[in-house]
């Protein structure tokens, strides 16, 4: 019997986990960064849609872990651990962090690059290697990861589709 493939969707400031044969996808990344953590052998992956670099920016009493690079990556790693994945076997692929407009308030103008820096710093802290990345530029991205092949598919409006 062949299993029916389905696509798990992750919204903005959200995270989720997927196992082969399903794939996982997030749409319309601009300055946000999509972070995929995966275990190649177990064919399981998690995807996080980061909006802000650091949870210290949060001014609300309710903390949405998935919104920030520091808390979100940690939360995603914990969720994968709960599925029996060893942190040492995790690898990462990241995409996004574009600069969609050339101006904004002083906080927001460099938010894309700042998100990318924060994601890299946190992955470094957790000793998770970045295998591939497609970051920066000024285009939006839709990304989809397949845990069966460890391929991240990236679609943009102007530059077409590529795989990393």
């Amino acid at each position, binding site marked *: 019997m062949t299993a029916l493939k389905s696509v798990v969707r992750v*919204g*903005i*400031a*959200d995270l989720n986990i997927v196992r082969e044969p399903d794939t996982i996808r997030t*749409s*319309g*990344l*601009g*300055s*946000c960064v999509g972070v995929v953590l995966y275990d190649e052998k177990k064919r399981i992956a998690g995807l996080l849609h980061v*909006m*802000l670099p650091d949870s210290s*920016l*949060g*001014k*609300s*009493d*309710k903390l*949405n872990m998935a*919104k920030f690079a520091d808390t979100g990556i940690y939360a995603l790693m914990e969720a994968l651990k709960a599925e029996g994945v060893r942190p040492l076997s995790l690898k990462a692929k990241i995409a996004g962090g*574009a600069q*969609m*407009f*050339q*101006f*904004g*308030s002083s*906080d*927001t103008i460099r*938010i894309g690059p700042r998100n990318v820096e924060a994601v890299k710093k946190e992955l470094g802290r957790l000793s998770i290697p970045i295998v591939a990345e497609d970051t920066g530029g*000024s*285009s*939006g*991205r*839709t990304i989809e990861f397949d845990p069966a092949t460890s391929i991240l598919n990236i679609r943009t*409006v*102007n530059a077409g589709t590529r795989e990393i």
Partner: protein
Amino acid sequence: MSTENPITDMHLDVLKEIGNIGAAHAATSLSQLLGRKIDMHVPNVRLVSFDEMFEMAGGPEKIVAGIYLRIEGDLSGSMFFVLPIESANHFIQRLIGDSSFDFNQNPIPEMGVSAMQELGNILSGSYLSALSDFTGLNIYPTVPSLSVDMVGAIVSFGLIEVSQYSDEVIVINTRLHEEDEDGSSSVDGHFFLLPDPPSYLTIFRSLGVL
């Protein structure tokens, strides 16, 4: 908005009135500019999740021409004028008198980019000056910037400020619409006004509803 100051239905009605006044002025400017009547719908004002906000504009992957500008002064916030590509093409073709103009071209012809930014200038200027007259607040728009890309990528930029306070955003959404002589829809777009959370209090205070 902190829990001590919940937004009530009355507050949402006040924001709706603000959208009404602003959009009516913008519609008049637009109709004059194009020499034809553009319908603006009564704005709807809702507190929605970020994902719901993208759905309002056609879904996160929908490709649009989006004009973005910041509002500064007594109030701060973001404003978007979002048109699906077909609608944006229609608009600009008519405005510059060139029926071959297409936002799908890469690079986009400079004439069209300028015209679209000028359109953003005129619309946001008339919207915000009406808002300024009504509230007595000083409000200045920044120069508008254009991006042709996915809705999620464009609009999320305007959610960065809000996202530091909340996982939800108050959207003052006005739909604009125009039908051709044959009844087909030629233009269908949205104005989104997203005040930064600290500015809600400023608006309510200026109108004496706090």
